[in-house]
């Protein structure tokens, strides 16, 4: 190991330990400090711009530092930015609002921890809304990690509103069917019978002895479905099989990587609504009135986007200057 490397590691560890023992908790920047930080960052970018134009591209690790700072510092800032609700998020929310109390909603958790920062806020807001409005939730997962992420949302709902712990009953108000392998073949088989794919729930209780599932045989007995999707299997498979073959009504919550590919289904009416990425999550939290993680993340997200855009602009200005000098 090189000496510089050791020094870098040492500095990072020292900083973290200092943060752990000496920093105020929670750490909040005042408005003045926040503005000063923004100005310093802007100045740093001007410096990068000048250096790049002169032909000295800054190193990869420097870029990493910029991104890290842009993502981290807004966590401690107190800016509140207004949010515009996009039509696809509103229509997903409207579909949920229009369900009468007692309606049955199928929630498929098709994601794993790496996508949780985007999808967990949506799932949490969804579960909280359902519990508050007496909507019955049937949880399942096409990804093995899904049911565990669902447990986290339920726990979050109970933590926020402790009386729910007594009022919301497992097996009556919600049920967790667990994970089943087979991707789209699971969706296909459920069109015939839920029980065939989930003979028991997660806790090995037989399907027929769960009160909530008494009158549910297949998709025709659920009123709507929400799908939290991070890839394959996910939103695309639900549309292709459950919507187009069995007429399930579904709103989709996607990671931002997947969302653009799902938009055509929205315009064609195969989806009732669409929540895409962190912005979709923040807007949904805004609509349901349950400010959660996404509402705090969106500020950092803004900074990060600006940083990426500035880097693209700086890089391209340098590129065009270089091209022009070559032509000359």
């Amino acid at each position, binding site marked *: 190991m090189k000496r510089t490397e050791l020094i870098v590691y040492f500095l990072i560890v020292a900083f973290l330990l200092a943060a752990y023992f000496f920093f105020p908790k929670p750490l909040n920047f005042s408005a003045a400090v926040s503005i000063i930080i923004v100005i310093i960052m802007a100045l740093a970018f001007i410096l990068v711009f000048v250096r790049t134009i002169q032909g000295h591209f800054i190193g990869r690790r420097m870029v990493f530092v910029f991104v890290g700072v842009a993502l981290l510092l807004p966590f401690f800032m107190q800016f509140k930015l207004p949010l515009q609700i996009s039509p696809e998020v509103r229509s997903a929310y409207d579909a949920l609002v229009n369900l009468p109390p007692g309606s049955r909603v199928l929630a498929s958790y098709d994601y794993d921890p790496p996508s949780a920062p985007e999808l967990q806020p949506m799932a949490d807001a969804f579960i909280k809304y359902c519990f508050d409005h007496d909507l019955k939730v049937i949880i399942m997962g096409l990804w093995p990690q899904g049911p565990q992420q669902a447990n986290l949302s339920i726990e979050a709902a109970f933590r926020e509103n402790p009386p729910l712990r007594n009022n919301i009953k497992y097996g009556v108000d919600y049920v967790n069917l667990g994970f089943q392998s087979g991707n789209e073949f699971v969706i296909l088989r459920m069109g015939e019978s839920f029980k065939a794919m989930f003979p028991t729930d997660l806790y090995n209780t037989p399907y027929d002895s769960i009160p909530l599932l008494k*009158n549910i045989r297949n998709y025709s007995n659920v*009123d709507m479905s929400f799908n939290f999707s991070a890839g394959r299997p996910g939103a695309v498979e639900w549309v292709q099989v459950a919507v187009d073959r069995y007429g399930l009504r579904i709103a989709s919550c996607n990671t931002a990587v997947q969302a653009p590919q799902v938009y055509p289904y929205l315009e064609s009416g195969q989806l009732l609504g669409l929540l895409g990425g962190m912005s979709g999550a923040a807007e949904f939290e805004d609509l349901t009135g349950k400010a959660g993680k996404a509402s705090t993340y969106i500020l950092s997200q803004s900074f990060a986007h600006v940083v990426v855009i500035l880097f693209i602009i700086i890089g391209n200005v340098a590129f065009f200057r270089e091209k022009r000098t070559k032509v000359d």
Partner: protein
Amino acid sequence: MKGFTTIISLVFLMALPLFAQETPPDSALVGAAVDTLVPAESRPAPVGQLSAEDTPNDDGESITINWMVSPDDAAGKVAEYKVMRALAPEGPFEEVGDAGSGQTSYSDNRAERGVPYYYKIAALNYKKVDNQITWQVSSESAVIGPIMATAQWINMGRLNILIAILILNGSIIYFIWAAKGGRQFYIRKIAGIEEVENAVGRATEMGRSIYYVPGINDMDDVQTLASITILGKVAAIAAENDTRIDVPVSRSMVMVTAREVVKEAYSKVGRPDSFQEDQVRYLTDDQFGYAAAIDGLFLRERPATIFLIGSFYAESLIMAETGNSIGSIQIAGTAQPAQLPFFVAACDYTLIGEEMFAASAYLSREPKLLGSLKGQDLAKAVFLIAIFVGVILESFGIDVSNLFTAE
């Protein structure tokens, strides 16, 4: 010996559940207590216009019941509708399903084929406190029936799809057959492929090597297959120019196949001795490990030309960035929609989705690929005409868009 141990441990694993015990069903999940303290005028009027029919286009296990909501539904006096079924008009009726207030239909999916059933709907109103029903009133509709579930031999709602898929598959088979018979098909120029010779030539001039990265998926991915086909052609051009081509791969199966293909390309141009086995080598299966290793190779070897063709995921941008930063000519191609933007932004030429498959057909002249391409093009032509004519008809108020959707 290792095989034996694995079998033993597997059998053990499979047998484990035999020792598990059955759990008794949890019957204490609900306890409904009906109180008699019913407020006045809380009983909803019964539903009207009850009708039932066999659910069409199914395997005969379902009956659809339709009704008009109770006149008191809008006033919030209906909590839910209960669907009751019996084998005789006088009963006994049992609950087969429920629907929320405001709903007007229910599919009874537990009907047995050919058995005559009778149905009625009960409009229910109740109050719940802490999940306990404190009071409940209901009024029942008239009985309807008998009605039987029947199975259909063909799903009439999907007839249009049947015709369309038959035409598409028929034309693909026809064109494959024609191509096998030696018919030539025209394929348009594809920018990235046209540039292959120049890109290889540049490497020859500079005296540096060419890198060909076939993606991170295994041989069961069609994109990898297409990539290997293109590799054969690129390797032949490289061998002709006596320029070294390196193929770092992330799957052992891909390594074996790619080695064969490159070796053959060298033999074809008459330089079988120039081929060295280590030109095609396996790095690691791990996604980021592979990306990091390629990164290092690019920085050390500084190849003049880089091909990134195949199935790529998140590692695409790490590779494209490094290739770009060392000033290589990069020709990329993938059918992963999420990775295409990064290739377009960071590489000189990009084969977009289908273009990559077309390129492999174009280069290999394999009848099955050429025929498929031609068949797909025919379908595209039909679709293009459909959109064009459809938009005009639709604009004049003639609804044709339903022709393309199943019921």
